[in-house]
């Protein structure tokens, strides 16, 4: 009966505004983005797959601490390759500027290939390219050896990687349809893998999602990891405080006024 009364009392109001960050009104906004991310995930699950075989797993991650940890992991990975350094550092900033992060992984690309002899990985009709480079018995790949030499423990079944692409593509399509900003990142996927998200997957793509006045993933300036909104705001706090400190007066007794013009003067 109590529940019934609660249902009848369907009324309320929500104030939503992205300023200031992490305020109640901003968190309400983020909750909307979380709903969008969940729908994006639905789309990822209905994307076309080779042979219709289920192989997608996903993580939705949000929260200030969580995104900071991910951003720092990306910054760590960035310095491993020359080609990654700048783009990855920029993308770490974008993660901090995101509302929700979606990880999408393929659970089969490293372990249970399509076995169709498609040749996409470089292999022959018997998928030998893949199996020759994997420890396997009975046609089963032994993934219990968790050591790896490279960032991604290849080779992977490229047909399954295609499936991952379809899943990510569908998630992004839904993001566009829902008018939330999203972008597929390799850096984010690698960081997610290292942090244990989608840990049954051989490859993970990260998709940050945001609904802000400015799309966080486009129109960035050079050295974005140094000059970005967080830094600019912090810089303002720093400079303005100092500007106050080096001057001063007792506003109750005297406030400097502009000099009076001739017309105004006596």
């Amino acid at each position, binding site marked *: 009966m109590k529940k019934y009364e609660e249902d009848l009392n369907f009324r309320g109001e929500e104030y939503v505004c992205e300023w200031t960050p992490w305020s109640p009104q901003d968190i309400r906004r983020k909750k909307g983005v979380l709903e969008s991310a969940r729908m994006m995930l639905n*789309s990822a699950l209905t994307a076309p797959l080779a042979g219709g075989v289920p192989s997608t797993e996903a993580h939705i991650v949000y929260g200030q601490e969580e995104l900071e940890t991910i951003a720092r992991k990306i910054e760590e990975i960035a310095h491993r390759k020359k080609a990654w350094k700048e783009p990855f550092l920029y993308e770490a900033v974008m993660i901090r500027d995101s509302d929700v992060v979606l990880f999408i992984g393929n659970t089969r690309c490293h372990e249970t290939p399509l076995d169709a002899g498609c040749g996409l*990985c*470089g*292999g022959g009709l018997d998928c030998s390219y893949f199996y020759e480079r994997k420890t396997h018995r009975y046609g089963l790949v032994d993934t219990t050896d968790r050591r790896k030499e490279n960032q*991604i*423990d290849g080779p992977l079944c490229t047909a399954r990687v295609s499936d991952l692409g379809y899943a*990510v593509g569908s998630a992004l399509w839904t993001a566009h349809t829902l008018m939330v900003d999203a972008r597929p*990142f390799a850096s984010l996927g690698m960081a997610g893998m290292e942090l244990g998200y989608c840990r049954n997957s051989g490859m993970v793509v990260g998709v940050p999602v945001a609904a802000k006045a400015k799309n966080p993933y486009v129109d960035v300036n050079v050295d974005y990891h140094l000059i970005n909104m967080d830094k600019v705001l912090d810089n303002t706090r720093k400079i303005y405080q100092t500007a106050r400190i080096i001057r001063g007066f007792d506003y109750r007794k005297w406030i400097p006024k502009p000099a009076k013009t001739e017309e105004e003067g006596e």
Partner: protein
Amino acid sequence: MGHLTGKAFCQEHVLEVAKNIALAVHKAPQITGKTEIEVEIIWGEDLEPIIEVMGPIAQVMQYVRWDYETLKNTYERGENPVVVAIGAKTTRSNLAWDCGACGFGTCREFNAYAKETRGGGQLGGPCCNWKTLDFSMACDWACASAWQYRIDNRIMGSVGFGLTALGFLPDMDVKLGLALGPPRDLVYYSREEMHKTMSYEEEKQAMINSIPTNFAAFVGGGTPMYKTKDDWWAPPKFMGMAYSPEVMEVMQQVLFEQVPEIVVKYADKIEARYKDRK
């Protein structure tokens, strides 16, 4: 003012929607931002070579047969199916990421390997996996776009094989074809085209042949015996592993005789279309 009746105008309009879909393919987001993607649209008589070249493959691969029969029948009935051909350059990496996903420690090693080897399968390769993701996202956007316009569609590796064999999208390495229309529900799913083309016995045997299941055989001392025979009194059949010269011969015949025979009929004409490209 006007008054459109019948279904022909809907069938014609599929082509216009295919153009919209091509825009979506080009708009699709990329991870690398460096993957070259091309789109072509093929319909009417120009679809005939693709359907024809799928024919021999359809005899040896069931999934190709389903696609082949559907495209062939809808085309022959004048229902105007349209193919959106999507291709990408994926067999070289210009990323210098050295991520290891392809199986090599560096992009340089992968490129050297890719230069001397072509994939032994149907769809090309070897591929940089990040470029493959870009290509797949573009193909997915084609599908999603088609769904948004409410046109029945299916992305097909079989058509991709036809495109490669005939030399469509000559600068691209991997190709898939999105079959579009005719405008009605369930053309490419639940395949009504295949009704009454297969007996129960054939269907049952095909399942057993193509999916060696555990439950189809007794646990044997190394030689599992089929238990699904209806004629239980006849001599038993066993599951085993063997090289099949017959299967290989049919495959050779299809790939190196029948397919090339069809390809030479059309190759020059198709190649000529790409002469003036940059």
